[in-house]
């Protein structure tokens, strides 16, 4: 396990190595630690607090390969104070990091079994480390499927990597809500392929991340296919401030999303996810 810092507020400084534009308003920041001796590792699905001095912090899932921490990547939509200020940064600029925090996709629990990954929009970013992990340890798993829904083809994240992922043994199935005539792929909601994809409910884990409503339908869809609700995992988004369960912002019923989550078994949150604005 990763040792906890004595003081949860301590920040490690990093340098931005490159910034890759993804979809409109979304960029991926690759960071390296300034302290070469920094021993940082993370589990797929965990998040960091990214810190811009004078502006503030934002909770962002790590979206890179957990097997390679020489460049730590975060895929960020510019939507709040901090992320909009980050948008103005250039390679060479500094960012602070606290982390990693939170729970991980239970990749070990499904060793020897099948995994269906269901992502919506930017929800692919927190799942990407799990995809890299599954590819890296491909022989340890049975069938691995990625169902990825986005609004339109231009909203598909990491499109250039899908071929490599397929070559790595993952059945990648993108689907978009609206498409121009040039689009040759599937059109509709990501719940549609989930209803028909080959799936043995006795040996399958489902990992899903996206907007709350999408995750609810995906998780219920998986349950309808016979997958037990405790083998369906969602990654919740809530306001994060301290990231260590002390500030109260991220509470969702009995759950502190920052330390009990963000990755949670669906049976634990199923009832409360039905209550609007809870």
């Amino acid at each position, binding site marked *: 396990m990763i040792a906890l810092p004595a003081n*949860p507020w*301590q920040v490690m400084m990093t340098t931005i190595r490159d910034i890759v534009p993804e979809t409109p308003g979304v960029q991926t920041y690759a960071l390296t630690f300034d302290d070469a001796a920094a021993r940082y590792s993370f589990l797929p699905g965990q998040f960091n607090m990214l810190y811009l001095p004078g502006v503030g912090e934002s909770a962002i899932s790590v979206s890179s390969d957990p097997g390679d921490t020489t460049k730590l990547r975060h895929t960020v939509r510019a939507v709040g104070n901090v992320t909009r200020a980050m948008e103005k940064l250039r390679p060479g600029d500094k960012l602070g990091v606290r982390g990693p925090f939170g729970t991980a996709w239970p990749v070990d629990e499904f060793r020897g079994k099948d995994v269906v990954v269901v992502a919506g929009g930017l929800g692919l970013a927190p799942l990407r480390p799990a995809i890299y992990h599954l590819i890296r340890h491909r022989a340890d798993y049975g069938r691995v499927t990625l169902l990825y829904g986005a609004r339109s083809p231009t909203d598909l994240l990491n499109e250039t990597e899908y071929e490599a992922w397929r070559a790595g043994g993952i059945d990648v199935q993108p689907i978009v809500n609206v498409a121009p005539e040039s689009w040759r792929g599937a059109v509709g909601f990501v719940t549609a392929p989930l209803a028909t994809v080959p799936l043995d409910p006795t040996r399958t884990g489902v990992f899903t991340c996206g907007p709350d409503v999408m995750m609810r339908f995906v998780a219920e869809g998986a349950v309808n296919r016979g997958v037990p609700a405790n083998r369906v995992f969602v990654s919740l*988004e809530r306001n994060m401030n301290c990231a260590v369960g002390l500030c*109260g912002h991220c509470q969702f019923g009995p759950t502190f999303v920052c330390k009990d989550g963000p990755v949670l078994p669906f049976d634990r949150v199923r009832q409360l996810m039905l209550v609007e604005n809870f």
Partner: protein
Amino acid sequence: MIGTAPGAYSWLPKSALQGLFDRLRELGYEVVGPRVADGAVTLGEITSLAELPAGVRDEQEPGKYRLTVIEGGGYFDHVVGPHSLKPFLFPPRTTVLQVLRVRDSWVAHTPEPPRPKRAVIGVRSCDLHALAIQDRVFLGGPHRDPEYAARREGLFLVAVNCGRSAATCFCVSMDTGPAVTGGADLILTELPDGFVVRVGTEGGGNVLAGLDCRECTPAELAEAESVPKRAASQQTRRLNPATVHDTLMNNLQHPRWDDAAKRCLSCANCTMVCPTCFCSTVNEVTDLAGEQTTRERVWESCFNEEHSWTGSGAVHPTTKTRYRQWLTHKLATWIDQFGSSGCVGCGRCITWCPVGIDLTEEVAAMEGSRE
């Protein structure tokens, strides 16, 4: 020779109470106690008996707090004011990180938290229970709060058994008072001529040893026992801690939430005076040149819209959803998280609510009718 082992009782004459202040100050403690300020009994540094609110009684009702003075009354006739132990351990404003620009980068360091030696006199049973709850929040998880831990170490507590209840008190139903059962170094029960002092800890015994005490008479002990019983008998409000969890969690769509939201101003007063509410947020405070940044942690409240802000909007965008978050957390999901209710029945949220919303009434309304 008086008993100074935990559990021992002695008699401290009223005239000797000043000795307790002096002894604590000799031992290096800042002495904090109740005094009248801004029309309320609040906690602050005091050096002498004369500063205690002798004869002051607080009349409390939903949305109402008034002081009256009774000639010849006791030092601790008041009940609880807007302050609790919370600000002394979890300050309303504190620095968690300091960041300096050095050439093209930043150097960040976490300041060493202060370790004050502080004695608080007059702490009530409800607030001792609240302290135990905050200990679980700030020290019981995988990440300990460094500031809270540092301030907790040097805390010396002189508790007082309540001799009266305010109309807003309901500690009896929460099993958190009014009699002090533990968690303090010394426990006082005020009688007309002096105090029955019970030793709570070894440290408390050491402080007591230097004071002008004698053994208690059986009559004094018997009278002291009746003091918190008198306070208990005055309480009319109640919650049922055995059923409140399910009452709320099975009624998340109850129309009473809309009703409460029509009255609630979302002002956050209840969360500020609550001795267990622990929400905070960190603000960036920078100098004009942008060379220095201080990350300040300040009290926050689930009644503020920005509290639940995410990239896709506020999770709790309305007063109804914020009031529901507060009450369900306080009375229900707190039990799931920490093994006890987040409420100690002190009644502060009722008194200090500007529109007098009474959580015991809100729960009762949902108890009586299922959604």
